[in-house]
């Protein structure tokens, strides 16, 4: 009973941490290699998206739908929202749509990473690094 509750808590924690930052859940689950892999891949794609959009795509005023999707990567989105809040569009950015596509894809792929982190913790014993069969 206690073990089951502990396992459920660890699964929830892994998913929550992955939602906060890609790879953080895997780090808690005892998979540092996979954590770095997902962090670099998803963080890099998200950053490329931001750069293509001139760092102006994370805005509830300009792109409410996309910004809601970006929230699937919570920490990077909230940080970008805070840092780029005051930026104004002074000239046309031709790659805004491409930037939104890149960042939204990175955010949606984080759902897969959450599922993976959950699976790793679910298939492991509480207190030991997980093993995937």
């Amino acid at each position: 009973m206690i073990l089951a509750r502990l396992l459920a808590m660890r699964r929830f924690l892994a998913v929550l941490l992955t939602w906060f930052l890609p790879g953080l859940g895997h780090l808690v689950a005892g998979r540092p290699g996979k954590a770095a892999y997902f962090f670099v891949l998803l963080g890099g794609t998200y950053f490329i998206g931001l750069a293509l959009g001139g760092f102006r795509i994370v805005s509830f005023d300009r792109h409410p739908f996309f910004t809601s999707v970006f929230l699937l990567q919570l920490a990077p989105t909230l940080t970008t929202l805070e840092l780029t809040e005051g930026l104004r569009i002074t000239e046309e950015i031709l790659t805004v749509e491409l930037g939104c596509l890149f960042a939204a894809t990175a955010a949606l792929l984080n759902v897969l990473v959450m599922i993976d982190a959950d699976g790793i913790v679910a298939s492991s014993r509480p207190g030991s690094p997980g093993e995937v069969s």
Partner: protein
Amino acid sequence: MASSIFLFLLLIGVISLVCSAVRRDDPRAILRSAVRLFLYLGGVTVVFGFVFHLVTGLT
């Protein structure tokens, strides 16, 4: 045009790498699966783009 194609292929590559790493641990298996997925997705994108170009005349 060329940079857009490169960026789309880059995006397809990232999708392949992430999807392949889910529920797999062996780096070789991940890479093999990613290459296969990249070829599938890239092929579908190129064929779809070519048909779209033929039908609409847009580039």
